[in-house]
């Protein structure tokens, strides 16, 4: 009945607290990017390794340029993946490209890996008429149906039980796909996390719970987020398969996620992966970490930069060179800047995007509200430059950038 059957009886009272069971951290590359001694070369072919690396470099460049653009006032908001590229992209590369990704918000690298174009990034960031999300969400809330990347939603952790449900659907569909959901160690404190992991093992759902433990939730250090040794030991509470990896070691992340996918898809074992990493940048463009952590701590992590480590490994194998690196950086920087200029110039989404997609069709009363709004904007076009522009009224001189 209840699972006591398996629990043997003891007559001595002893309290455990889990310290008995320390979860180790799986790593293949040392801090310098050299394979630990005695390790076989991991099964990552050259093309794939370079695909991963390029996505990591691209993500870094994108983040640098867009944060700069935000500082210049060209963009209202931005949020970097910096320091966590190996975790996000290493995991993504271990999946089938049509597995579903349900991310938190710091996983632009996953999209970069799957081929989201620079223009697609920019259109979302600038919320212009080509943004799939029709300019409704803040920058970095990307989504792509084609690339199986669920549109980001700001409320934290809501995607975690959704991932369990999505994966349940995949299991029923029987096409051998799984879902991965990314989240921070902060989000893992939400009730939705508990619901999701418990339901996943009960219903044996092909889902990978990928926790980016980057040490902070905005200003809150992990030590004030939980008292345990990370997030990984929670798996024991659900009898879920779990592994902890060095999140700045792309080879380890890739290997662990590949095996996790196999467990999920072939055996319907959901898996929790905790990737230990560090948020090298501020939480977002609205944040200033100097108020809550030391430069020294940041520096200690900067030397563990996942891109540097992978680069060393690639160069050691003669798969990569400084020349190629410089050329790539230059190209990405140029491409990002050009794309940004294009995106900024595009018109805002049409006025009707205010009322579409609330339902499958615009309800009658909402249509009435829209008609009244349209009439209103026609009366005051100078007050609503974007709306006026959408209505083809051209007496405005709004700057192109965001307000």
């Amino acid at each position, binding site marked *: 009945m209840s699972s006591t059957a398996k629990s043997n009886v003891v007559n001595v009272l002893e309290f455990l607290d889990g310290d008995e069971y320390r979860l180790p951290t799986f790593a293949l590359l040392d801090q310098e990017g050299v394979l630990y001694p005695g390790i076989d070369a991991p099964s990552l072919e050259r093309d794939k390794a370079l695909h991963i690396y390029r996505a990591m470099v691209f993500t870094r460049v994108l983040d640098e340029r867009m944060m700069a653009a935000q500082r210049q006032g060209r963009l209202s908001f931005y949020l970097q993946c910096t320091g966590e590229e190996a975790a996000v992209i290493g995991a993504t590369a271990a999946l089938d490209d049509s597995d579903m990704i349900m991310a938190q918000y710091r996983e632009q690298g996953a999209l970069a890996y799957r081929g989201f174009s620079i223009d697609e990034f920019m259109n979302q960031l600038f919320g212009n008429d080509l943004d799939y999300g029709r300019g409704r969400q803040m920058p970095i809330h990307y*989504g792509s149906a084609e690339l199986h990347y669920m549109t980001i939603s700001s409320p934290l952790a809501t995607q975690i039980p959704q991932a369990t449900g999505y994966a349940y659907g995949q299991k029923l569909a029987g096409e051998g796909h799984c879902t991965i959901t990314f989240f921070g160690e902060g989000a893992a404190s939400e009730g939705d996390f508990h619901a999701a992991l418990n339901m996943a093992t009960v219903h044996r759902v092909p889902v990978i719970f990928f926790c980016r433990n980057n040490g902070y939730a905005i200003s809150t250090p992990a030590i004030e987020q939980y008292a345990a040794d990370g997030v990984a030991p929670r798996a024991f509470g659900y009898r879920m398969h779990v592994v902890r990896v060095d999140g700045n070691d792309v080879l380890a992340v890739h290997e662990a996620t590949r095996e996790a996918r196999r467990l999920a898809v072939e055996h319907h074992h959901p898996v929790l992966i905790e990737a230990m990493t560090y948020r090298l940048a501020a939480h977002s463009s609205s944040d200033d970490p100097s108020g809550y952590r030391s430069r020294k701590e940041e520096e200690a992590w900067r030397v563990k930069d996942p891109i540097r480590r992978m680069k060393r490994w690639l160069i050691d194998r003669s798969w990569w060179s400084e020349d190629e690196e410089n050329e790539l950086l230059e190209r990405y920087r140029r491409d990002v800047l050009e794309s940004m200029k294009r995106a900024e110039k595009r018109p805002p989404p049409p006025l009707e995007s205010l009322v579409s997609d609330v339902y*499958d069709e615009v309800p009658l009363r909402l249509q009435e509200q829209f008609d009244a709004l349209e009439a209103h904007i026609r009366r005051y076009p100078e007050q609503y430059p974007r709306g006026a522009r959408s209505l083809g009224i051209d007496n405005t001189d709004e700057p192109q950038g965001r307000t």
Partner: protein
Amino acid sequence: MPTMNMLQAINNALDMAMASDERVICFGEDVGTFGGVFRATSHLQERYGKARCFNTPLVEQGIVGFANGLAAQGAVPIAEIQFADYIFPAFDQLVNETAKFRYRSGNLFNVAGLTIRAPYGGGISGGLYHSQSPEAYFTHTPGLKIVVPRNPYQAKGLLLASIRDANPVLFFEPKRLYRAATGEVPDADYQLPLGNAEILKEGNDVTVLGWGAQMTMIEAAVEMVENEGVSCEVIDLRTLLPWDVDTVAESVFKTGRLVITHEAPLTGGFAGEIAATIQERCFLYLESPIARVAGLDTPFPLTLEKEYMPDQWKLHDAIKASIEF
């Protein structure tokens, strides 16, 4: 035509939905083997297997979160919340997620297939936590549809329509009527339209409007006042979001008077929205203030439940007061 009570009609609708579309999946607390604490999902697990009808762990936020994901995947989930009073742990998943899924993604993704069923309402000696009518907590949420049936026939047709509607639907079932309401229900697969109020009875002096279990109170009250010579037009709103303003306004243009009733507390209840909208639309036609007959602005009581309820006598007096204003 067979006679069914409301539970049977709901069970029949679920059965039909599952039979006609294999993507339909029913789950919730005690929904599996047991068929739900009210037995709305009886025999569905037997018929369609454990993969399509199952118990969930006891976690409403998980149930709705799971349902959102499953719907996004393309399935047609029908999740049961055991009592509407226990829907609040899922509030974030419903209001921030379900309702905004399509809009925020520019329809790259949606949860079109989703239906959430929950028994609501008082009159069963349930006290604070087995009696609430939380519909107004959701009517402020664009993106959701909200449907409440008043009898077995309506329940089947509206539930089938809700399941198949291309939008997420909250389907509140008046549990007081689960066994108390019986009526003829066609064997056939039929749908009743969402978004349309229904005029149950035409009349000239006053419009009386409600939904769900309150329709039985209205019926009784109308019988009383008609005996006193008042001609009532009776409307069942049926869909609360988006609601059918035109049908109600047309009626008030004719009668000049409106009495609205719901069980939930007065303040912030959905009658307020209706009154606000109708006073605006029908301003020059109104012959008396729009009246609301609702629960007290308190939690739901137990021993004095009868006193609390917006019943036929309270409605009777409100209708008379409206006429005699």
